[in-house]
């Protein structure tokens, strides 16, 4: 296409981008690296490292607490980063606060709800009582399951879930059918890290809000890979991780819609989030500071903002289309290999750039080893989704996950080596 609007990433553009990622030129196993594990963690472009390096060697200081020039510079960088990251996901700056990772952000929401209920909250949007329900999907990552199990245990609420089918897929209808007057929280992944299934979030939000339930979105696999506007989606809370979107580790993002952020007590308490403290009493600042106890990872936040700048410069719509194409290629290719079972949405149904497979007669660990010997970094295991795998009848799957720097050639190489796995182990003979 030559419309002037970049609708996807050309091969040439991807090659250009790859040059920004030093690690992609490495040969960790003595063979060129084919990195298809971006669903676990992404690689980082030099632009991100350089932004952090500049901050840490020129402007590093504790923010919001000092009057000296260095502290003022650092505070500027910190708040500018918050603004850019907020804009990237369609949020207001005050709706964005920091966590250790997405897991921590999701825990925070659940812990804060628990705390609010222990304190006997009268806010109907926060109240969770015995007999109430918390709804999740059977495909959730443990990070978006265990905190809700624990909240249910503590409040006496019942954890319910929409089941997946033989392919590991749940439907919007089945999920919304489970939403009742008792539902207080619906927690779900925007995109599954195993199946690549893309949830119809607006439909879920409409059904949940109709009964006054909160919607908590695990956006770990969506925000890095497609344009996401959290306000437009209407969710009450969302979480995602810097390390999955070209940014550094050690920084998760917690989105709390304005009204929820104003109502929730903090999960963590300490310095920089209070107005007045006596030996027995404490008063908290408003959001977002209320949720930012202690020294925040400013260098990493600056790095994440640089990652966001990078993603925006490339263009999220183009990244999305590039990955949808790779996802389709992965899925179609894998499905056509004899003895390989593809998990997730049927061919033809949109899926993110993720494909997980089961190789008949070969344990995923063995499959991963063969791939690794060919330089292919794919992931084998339960991908922190044991209930889903139990339902699929396996302990582990083999997953390839793409990003903006992934190429068709890499996908083809993966498929090629995958097709040789059963032969290697003499399976099916």
């Amino acid at each position: 296409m030559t419309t002037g609007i970049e609708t996807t990433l050309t091969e040439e553009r991807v090659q250009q981008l790859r040059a920004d990622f030093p690690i992609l030129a490495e040969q960790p196993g003595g063979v060129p690296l084919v990195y298809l594990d971006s669903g676990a963690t992404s690689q980082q472009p030099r632009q991100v490292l350089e932004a952090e390096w500049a901050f840490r060697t020129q402007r590093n200081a504790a923010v919001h607490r000092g009057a000296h020039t260095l502290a003022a510079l650092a505070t500027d960088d910190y708040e500018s980063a918050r603004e850019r990251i907020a804009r990237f996901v369609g949020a207001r700056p005050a709706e964005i606060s920091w966590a250790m990772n997405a897991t921590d952000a999701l825990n925070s929401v659940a812990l804060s709800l628990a705390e609010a209920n222990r304190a006997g909250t009268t806010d109907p949007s926060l109240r969770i009582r015995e007999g109430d329900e918390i709804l999740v999907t059977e495909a959730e990552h443990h990070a978006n399951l265990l905190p809700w199990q624990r909240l249910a245990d503590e409040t006496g609420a019942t954890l319910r879930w929409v089941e997946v089918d033989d392919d590991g897929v749940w439907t919007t209808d089945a999920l919304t059918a489970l939403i009742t007057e008792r539902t207080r929280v619906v927690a779900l992944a925007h995109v599954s890290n195993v199946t690549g299934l893309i949830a119809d979030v607006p439909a879920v939000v409409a059904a949940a809000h109709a009964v006054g339930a909160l919607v908590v979105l695990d956006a770990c696999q969506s925000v890095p890979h497609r344009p996401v506007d959290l306000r437009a989606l209407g969710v009450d809370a969302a979480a995602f991780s810097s390390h999955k979107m070209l940014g550094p580790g050690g920084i998760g993002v917690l989105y709390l819609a304005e009204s929820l952020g104003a109502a929730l007590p903090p999960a963590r308490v300490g310095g920089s989030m209070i107005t007045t403290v006596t030996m027995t009493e404490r008063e908290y600042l408003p959001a977002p500071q209320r949720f930012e106890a202690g020294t925040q990872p400013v260098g990493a936040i600056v790095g994440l903002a640089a990652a966001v700048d990078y993603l925006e410069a490339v263009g999220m719509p183009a990244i999305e289309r590039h990955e949808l194409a790779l996802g389709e290629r992965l899925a179609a290719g894998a499905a056509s290999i004899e003895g390989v079972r593809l998990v997730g949405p049927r061919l033809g149904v949109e899926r993110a750039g993720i494909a997980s497979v089961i190789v008949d007669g070969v344990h995923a660990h063995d499959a991963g080893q063969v791939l690794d010997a060919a330089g292919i970094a794919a992931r084998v295991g339960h991908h922190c989704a044991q209930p889903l795998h139990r339902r699929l009848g396996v302990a582990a799957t083999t997953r390839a996950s793409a990003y903006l720097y992934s190429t068709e050639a890499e996908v083809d190489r993966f498929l090629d080596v995958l097709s040789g796995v059963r032969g290697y182990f003499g399976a099916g003979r």
Partner: protein
Amino acid sequence: MTDPLAGLYQELILEHAKLRSGEGLIDPFDAERHLKNPTCGDEVTLRVRLTGDGDDARVDALGWVGQGCSISQASASVLAEQAQGLTVAEVRERIEAMRELLRSRGAAEPDEALLGDAVAFAGVARFPMRVKCAMLAWVALEEALTATGR
């Protein structure tokens, strides 16, 4: 070397920090606001009494007590002198002008006709960490006026 602080601590500011015009809590009053800057612990309690009605409502008296840095104390003192006798609309205009000036990071040209002595705070705009100090009493008055319903 020029004193980098001269722009911040204008002679007039240092004087007002000692002068503390309007210090003391008036009674009776129409509204009171207590504000605090959690970063540095600066505090101000401000009371305002109005006279007249509707668009004619004017500041009849204004008093404050507080503690904090010289910037925050001086700005309360200047405010007390400025606001006296102005209509509510005139006061609000000055508060907005002050806010714009301080947030400009030094880019704005202060409107001396409007702000009078308060232009001395123009230098604060170059010290972002101090902007809250300079605005503290002014925001307190703004909120107090709102509380009076005018």
